[in-house]
């Protein structure tokens, strides 16, 4: 069984703890990860839809596939400046 740990930021922390983990058998798409998170917290559906997923190194494309245990980060829309 593989595991993805997802860290949350900013407004997402009003809906989730600092992080959560999702287990999966073989591979998982970014969209599937978002769907699982939306089922865990329906109040955050719009925010999850508008958020990007990243590693510590890069923003992942929406069609990226996760095939190993790793740490991901859910980034709500930027509001710096």
């Amino acid at each position, binding site marked *: 069984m593989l595991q993805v740990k997802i860290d949350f*930021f900013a*407004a997402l922390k009003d809906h989730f703890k600092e992080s959560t983990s999702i287990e999966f058998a073989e591979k998982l798409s970014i969209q599937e990860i978002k769907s699982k998170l939306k089922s865990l917290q329906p109040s955050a559906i719009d925010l999850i839809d*508008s958020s990007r997923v990243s590693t510590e*190194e890069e923003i992942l494309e929406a069609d990226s596939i996760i095939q190993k245990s790793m740490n991901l980060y859910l*980034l709500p*829309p*930027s*509001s*710096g400046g």
Partner: protein
Amino acid sequence: MNNFITNESIDLHNEIKKAGLISCGAVVHFSGLVRNHNEGKPVLALEYEAFQPLANKMIQEILDNVKEKFSIQYASCIHRIGRLELGEIAVIVVTSSSHRKECYSANQYIIDKVKHEIPIWKREFFADGTITWSKGCEHEH
């Protein structure tokens, strides 16, 4: 890697001084300050949060790209995190180049990119006691 995210107050004059290269006839600086209102409501303070490893990497990439894109000699960007009071500098962008036109263009390009793309978030503390995260910019997925 440089650290473009800081908990410390931004020293405006020091940042501008770094851009004063002898080959450059133009220096442009933009400062984003904490203002006392938003969407018609009085604001008391702001608080910024960043995903620092990725934010630093992405700002570095923007600065590297902008030097090539606009043929400028110097570009920097520093963004505060933590709680900021009214009038404090939240972000500064400094560019320098031989001439002003590309210097202005590059500076605006950097702040637009930083506001729209970098994983930094702002929380507003309003005078009526409400505290809300700014909705931010829509991203393409």
